[in-house]
């Protein structure tokens, strides 16, 4: 009757019951129900909301491009904010990211550098933008400074992590030749992280483009201010035109970022961008990562 398998002591169960994940899932489910009740999220609310939404979306169309000069001016300002903030942010994040790498720097250097990066990351760009608007006044300068801080926080952290993952064997070999510190950086460290760094930088430019269309809502320059004003005046057809323009800008930025990666990482030519399918291209970029 009793097979040898059943005779195994409980400790030899091949799939031990994991109780904690189950308990956690139940707790999360209970909290979701509780939060819905607290926030008065009910089916009736959703129904009236949907009716409202239909009305609003009806007024968005057709988009109204008659004030295209205002639109273009806002877009160009957003673009300038994004490019300037990315450039400044990358320039600051590079040394900070390097100083924060614990495998190359002593603790008394890496901890302060990491602390700066953590502070730069901890606040959302909109909150930082509000602070800078109060500090330096309305306009693009506040937007540039806010997005610079965001860039430092993002790239600084990723760059530090990239450096901490490099192969120290290659660094050791360069050190063994008697190379001075900056040559070790240039020949042992940088080649290992360069392509990833280009990836981070282009991603940050893309992210800054999106954020630069938003900081205007709090008065920090760019198309966001125009968008906010159009909302408040219920000019929904103009709002629609602005949204279309923003989407186009982001798509152009995406194309530009891909081109930059292709040029710098050097495993795809510009012609490849148009010849190849997106899947094939991504594979090659990942392979080089």
């Amino acid at each position, binding site marked *: 009757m009793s097979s040898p398998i059943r005779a195994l002591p409980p400790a030899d169960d091949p799939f031990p019951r994991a109780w904690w994940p189950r308990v956690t899932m139940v707790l999360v489910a209970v909290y979701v129900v509780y939060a819905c009740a607290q926030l008065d999220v009910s089916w009736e609310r959703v129904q009236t909301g949907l009716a409202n939404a239909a009305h609003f979306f009806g007024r968005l169309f057709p988009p109204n491009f008659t004030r295209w000069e205002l639109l273009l001016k806002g877009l160009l300002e957003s673009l300038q904010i994004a490019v300037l903030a990315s450039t400044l942010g990358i320039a600051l994040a590079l040394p900070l990211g390097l100083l924060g790498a614990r495998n190359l720097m002593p603790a008394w250097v890496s901890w302060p550098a990491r602390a700066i990066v953590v502070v730069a990351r901890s606040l959302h760009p909109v909150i930082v933008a509000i602070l800078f608007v109060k500090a330096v006044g309305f306009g693009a300068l506040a937007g540039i400074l806010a997005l610079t801080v965001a860039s430092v926080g993002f790239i600084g952290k990723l760059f530090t992590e990239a450096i901490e993952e490099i192969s120290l*064997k290659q660094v050791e*070999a360069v050190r*063994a*030749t*008697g*190379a*001075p510190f900056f040559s070790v950086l*240039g020949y042992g460290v940088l080649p*290992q992280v360069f392509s990833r760094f280009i990836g981070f930088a282009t991603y940050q430019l893309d992210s800054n483009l999106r954020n630069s269309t938003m900081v205007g809502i709090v008065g920090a320059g760019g198309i966001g201010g125009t968008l906010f004003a159009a909302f408040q005046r219920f000019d929904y057809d103009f709002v629609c035109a602005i949204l279309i323009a923003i989407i186009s800008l982001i798509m152009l930025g995406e194309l530009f970022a891909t081109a930059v990666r292709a040029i710098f990482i050097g495993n795809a030519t510009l012609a490849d961008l148009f010849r190849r399918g997106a899947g094939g291209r991504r594979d090659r970029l990942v392979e080089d990562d």
Partner: protein
Amino acid sequence: MLTLRHLSKSYVPGKPVLQDIDLDIAARGITAVIGPSGTGKSTLIRCINRLVEPTAGEILFDGADLARLSGAALRHARRHIGMVFQEYNLVERLTVMENLLCGRLGYVGAWKAWRRKFPPEDIRRAFELLDVVGLAGFAHRRADALSGGQRQRVGIARAVMQEPKLLLADEPTSSLDPKTSVEIMQLLADVARSRGIPVLINMHAVALGKRFADRIVGMSGGRIVFDGPPANLSDDVLKQIYGGEDWLDE
């Protein structure tokens, strides 16, 4: 040429990996260090160019005690010591030419090196050396596109680019197949002879050591237990170095 006096190293206090090593390396010839895994062969080699910090002792080389150098003085001493690694340790993303020129980084300023402004003489020698190690035409290949044997040839060429007065090799053939291993050992022997420099190699393959080395140093338990010409390396000595005897029946 190179003299080690009372060299000791403990990674953990009280558990020495190297104990009181005394060793004299003559101005030329190949010395092979053999011994079981974990007996401190790699640590010994790495102490010499201070990739590992010795705990105590002296490393007399070229009129200075390497164990006491630091900063620029240590870097200047390292320029004269070439090193070949088990896993080649090439900079994978750089070209073969850039990897060779890494051997000149101790002589060329960082600013010039970043802009790839090496003296024409260095570049001429690099092309020459590529020819010598059998990799002519590979200058612009990226290191990660090479096979193991080719990488180790680049590793040797990089070390020779330093114009070293001493060549260290840390298990240079352990990641290679038997045929390539012999070719790499032959290349190291050729370099040692043609440049008249001493080579200190630590290795696992006793047969390769016997075939190419002028002198064998056997280590066991962090100490030197044999030192002599390959001909004196009897089965009894091997038993003493590696322990046991079953493995000798080949």
